[in-house]
C-alpha cells in the first residue's frame, strides 16, 4: 500500500511558498522541509522542484541569493518576497475553503440530502 499521496496539479507552488515562509531555504532544503512537515506523506519529484522555483522567482514571489548550505556547499537560498507572502495568504485561504467544501460534500449522508 502506497502511503504517499500524489500532488494535485498546481499545489507544488503553494507547498514551496509555505516551506520557504518558515525561513530561507535552498532547493534541497525545500524538499526536506516539505517531507519533514508532511512526515513523508507527500511525494515530490526532486527535479520537478527547480522549474517551479525558477518560475516563482520570475513571478517575483520569491527572492534568491547564493549562500552556504549546512553541508558546507555553495547553494542558492530562497525567501519570500512581500508579494509572495501575500500570495501565500490568499492561496492558503482558497485551499482551506476548497478542503472544507470538499470535506463536507464527501461526508454527506443520505438523510442529509
Amino acid at each position, binding site marked *: 500500500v502506497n502511503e504517499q499521496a500524489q500532488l494535485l496539479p498546481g499545489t507544488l507552488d503553494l507547498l514551496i511558498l509555505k516551506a520557504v515562509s518558515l525561513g530561507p531555504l*535552498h*532547493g*534541497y532544503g525545500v524538499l526536506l522541509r516539505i517531507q519533514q512537515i508532511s512526515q513523508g506523506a507527500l511525494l515530490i*519529484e*526532486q*527535479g*520537478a522542484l*527547480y*522549474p*517551479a522555483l*525558477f*518560475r516563482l*522567482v*520570475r*513571478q*517575483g514571489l520569491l527572492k534568491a541569493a547564493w549562500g552556504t*548550505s549546512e*553541508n558546507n*556547499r*555553495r*547553494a*542558492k537560498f530562497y525567501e519570500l518576497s512581500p508579494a509572495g507572502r501575500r500570495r501565500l495568504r490568499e492561496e492558503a485561504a482558497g485551499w482551506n475553503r476548497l478542503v472544507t467544501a470538499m470535506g463536507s460534500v464527501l461526508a454527506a449522508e443520505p438523510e442529509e440530502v
Partner: protein
Amino acid sequence: MKFLSTLRSFIPALFHRAQIEHEMEEELRSHILNRADDLERSGIPRAEAERRARIEFGAFERRKEECRESVGVRLIETLVQDLRFGLRVLRKSPGFTTVAVLTLALGIGANTAIFSLIDTVMLRFLPVQKPHELMDVLRLSPGSRNAKPTSGFTYALWEGFRENQDIFPSVYAWSPGRFNLSQGGAVRYVNGIFTSGSYFNTLGVRPAMGRLFGPADDQRGCPSLAVLSYGFWQEHFAGAPSAIGATLSLNNHPFQVIGVSSSGFYGMEVGSKFDVAVPVCSAAIFDSKKSRLDTRDWWWLRMGGRVKPGISPEQVDARLKVLSPAVWGGAVPQDWEPQWQQNFRTRLLLSAPAAAGVSELREQFSRPLMVLMAIVGLVLLIASANLASLMLARAASRTKEIAVRKALGASRGRLVRQLLTECLLVSLLGAVLGMFFARWGAALLVRFISTRQNAVFLDLAPDLRVLGFTAAIAVFTAILFGVLPALRSTRVSLTAAMKGGQAESSEDRSHTRFSSGKWIVASQIACSLVLLVISGLFLHSLIKLVTLDLGFDRSNVLLVNANAFAASIPPAARPSAFDEMENRLRSLPGVVSVSRSSRVPVSLGEWSQPVEVDTPNPPKGEDATVYLTFITPGYFQTMRTPLLAGRNVAATDTETSPKVAVVNESFARKFFPNMDPVGKSFRRVEGRAGVLPTAIQIVGLVKDSKYESVRETIAPQTFYPLTQIPTGDNYEIRSEFFEVRTGSLPSVLVPSVQNTIAQVNKGITLEFSSLTEHVDDSLVQERLLATLSAFFGALALLLAMIGLYGAISYGVGQRRSEFGVRLAMGAPPLSILRLVMRDVAVMMLGGVVAGVAISLGAVRLVHKLLFGLTSYDPIAILGAIFVLSAVAVVAGYLPARRAMRVDPMIALRYE
C-alpha cells in the same frame, strides 16, 4: 504585470545567458551533492550515494530545459535552435533546398523588381529638402473641350506669376531641353534644363563645387552660364575642379561652367536626369528673330513653388484662382484674334502636389506597372503553391522523424514552430537571392522602356520601402506555403507511424492529403490560365498594332534630321542648300528614293490648324482642325503612300505659284463628303489678328496614314509643298527631315549620307534614325506588356504543370498497390490510365472554370491597355485554354503511364 516580470527576467536572460546557464547548472548539481551527502551519512558508500542521488533527481537535461523555460530564455533559444536545426535539415536535402530557394528567388525577385520600379516611378519623393512642401502650378482652360489641367506656361505668364503671387514664399520655373555638344556633323545630345534663378535655392539643392544660379542670373540678356549635374561633371570632366570656368558648347553657343549641383539630385523629372542647367533667360540665344522669352504662345515652362508649412492645398488653389485674371490678363498674345484673346483671359491657375516630382513616365507606365505587379504576384502565388505541394510530399517522407520527436515529448506547437522556421529560412534565403535578381531585372526593365529618343534614367537604389516590401512578401510566402504542410505533417498517429514506413497509408488519410493537393493544383491551373489569357490579350493586341496598315511602309527608310541653325547658312540660302543635298543623296548607291519634310510620322510635335471650306454645314472650331506636313515631291514615293487621285506636289509648285495641297481620305470624308475633293479649295485659318486665312487648292488625294501614333484613329491631314511653308516671325524652320529609302539596311548608309551632306555644308548637325525605330519606339509600352506577360505566363504554366505532374505522381505512388490489385484481378491497363486521367481532368476542369471566371473579371482591368480587341477576345481565351489543356494532358499522362505499367507482383510484394 506578468508581462513586465517576463520582460524583467527576459532582458537579463538575453544578455547573461552564459551566466544564467552556469548558475542553473551549479544549483542543480549542488542539490544532487547535498542529497548525496545525506545518503552517505546514512551509511552508503560515496560513489553509490552520488549514483542514487542522480537517479532520484531524474532526467537532468530535461529539468534544465524546463528551468530555462521558466526563466524565459526559451524563446530566443528555441529560435536559435530551430534555425540551426533548420539549416541542418536544408543542408541534408540540397536538391529540395536548391529548387525551393531558386523558385522563391525568382518569384520574390520579380515582385521586388516591379515594386522597385513602382516605388521609384510613382511613390518616392524627390531627394530635395522637405519635398512634401513643393507644389506644381498648372493651367486650365475652362471653355476647352477636354478641360484637363496642363503644365506648360509662356515666359510672360511666368513673369506675371512671379511678380503677382503672394501664396508661395518662393517660386521657380524650369523647362527640359536638349543641347547638342558637337559643333557640326553627328549630334551628341545631353539632357539640359532651363532653370529660373530661384530653382536650386527653392528646392534646397546645394552646390558640390562652385556656385548655383541666384536671382542675379534671372534677368533678360543674362550671360551664358551653366551648372553641371554631379554625374555629368564626373563623366565629362572626370570630377576635375578645373571644370569650373571651363566652356561648354551647347547648340554651338559657348557657355561658361560656374558650378556643380550636389550628387543625388537629378532634376524634377522622374525618369530622366539633367546633365547641364542653364538660366531660363539664356534661352533667347537659341532662338532667332522672336525668342521664346517674347513669344506669348510658346508654352515651354513649368512652374512651381514651396508652400509655407500649414497652408492647405485648398488655400493655395483658392488664392491662385484669385490671382489668375491678373496673371493671364497681363500675358495675352497681342497678335491673336480678339475672340481667342478673350478666351485666354479666362484661363485659370491651379496647383498639384509635386513631392514626387513630375513624370511623363509615370503617366505612361502607372497602369502597365500595376498590371505587371498583379502578374508577378500571381506567379509568386503559383510558385508558393508548388512549394506547398513539395512540402506536403516531403512531410510524408518525414513522418517517422516527426513521430520520433513527438514520442520524445515534443509538443505539436513546438514542431509546427520548427517546421515554419524551416520555411521562413528557405523564404528568406530566396528573398536575399531575389534582391540580386531584382536589381538586375529592374535595370533590364529600365533598358527595355528606354528608347533612342528618350533614355530612361531611374535611381534604383533600394530604399526602406522596397526592403520592407521584400521582407513582407518573404514572410507572407513562407506562411503561405508552410502552414498547411506543417499542420498536416504534425498530425501523426504515433503508433501507426512507428509501426512501419508505409503504414500511414490508411485509406482516408491518403485520400484527404491527395485532395488537398488537388485543390492546390486546381488553383494553380486557375491562376496560370488567368496569366495566359492576359498575356494572350497583350500579344494579340501587339500583333494587331505591329501588323496594322499605317498608310506608309516603315521598313528600310533612313531618317536624317538635319539642323542648319548652327551652320553658317543665311536663312534665304537654306532651301537651295537642302535641295542640293537632296539631289546628291539621290545619286548615292543603295538609295532608292529621297525626300524631305517638315516632320516625320509617329513622332512627337504636331502642327495643326483649323481650316474653313465653302460647303453647307462645314465642321467648325476644334472639329475643323487638320494636321499639316510640308513635303518635297519625292515624299509619297519614299513613304510608299499611294496617291489615289489628282497629282502629287511638284517642283513647279514654288513659293510664288498658287498655294496647293494634297489631302488624305479622312480630310476628304470630313470636309467634302461624297464629293471628289480634287479641284476643291479650303482656307487655312492662321488665328492671328490681321492675318487673312490662306486660300489653298486641293490638287491630289492620298491614302490615309498615321500622324502621331500607331494607336490613333486617323485624323484629317494636309500635305503642302515645302517651298510654300509659311515664313515670318512665327514660323522658322531650321531643321528638316530627309527620308532616304534604301535597298538594304538603312544604318549601312549612315556614313555615306553623312559625307554627302558634309560636302555641301560641314556645319549642319545630323541625327540619324529609321522609320522602323520610330514606330517601334512608339510601341514600347505595348511591347513591354506583351513580352513580360508572355514570359511570366509561360513561367506560370511551367510551374503549374510541375505542380500537376507532382500531384499526379504522388497520387499514383500512393495507389500503387491498389493499381497492382486491379491489374492482378484482370483490369485492362487502359482502365488504370483512365482512372488517373480522370483525376487530371477533374483538376483541369475546376481550374479552367475558375480561371475563366477570374479572367473575365481581370480583363476589365487591362481593357484600357488593349488595342483593337473586345475585352472578351475569344482568340486569347480559347487559345489560353487550348495551350493549358494540351500541356496538362502531357503533364498528367507521363505519371499516368507509369500507373498503367505497374507490375502487380512488385506492387503487392511491396505492401
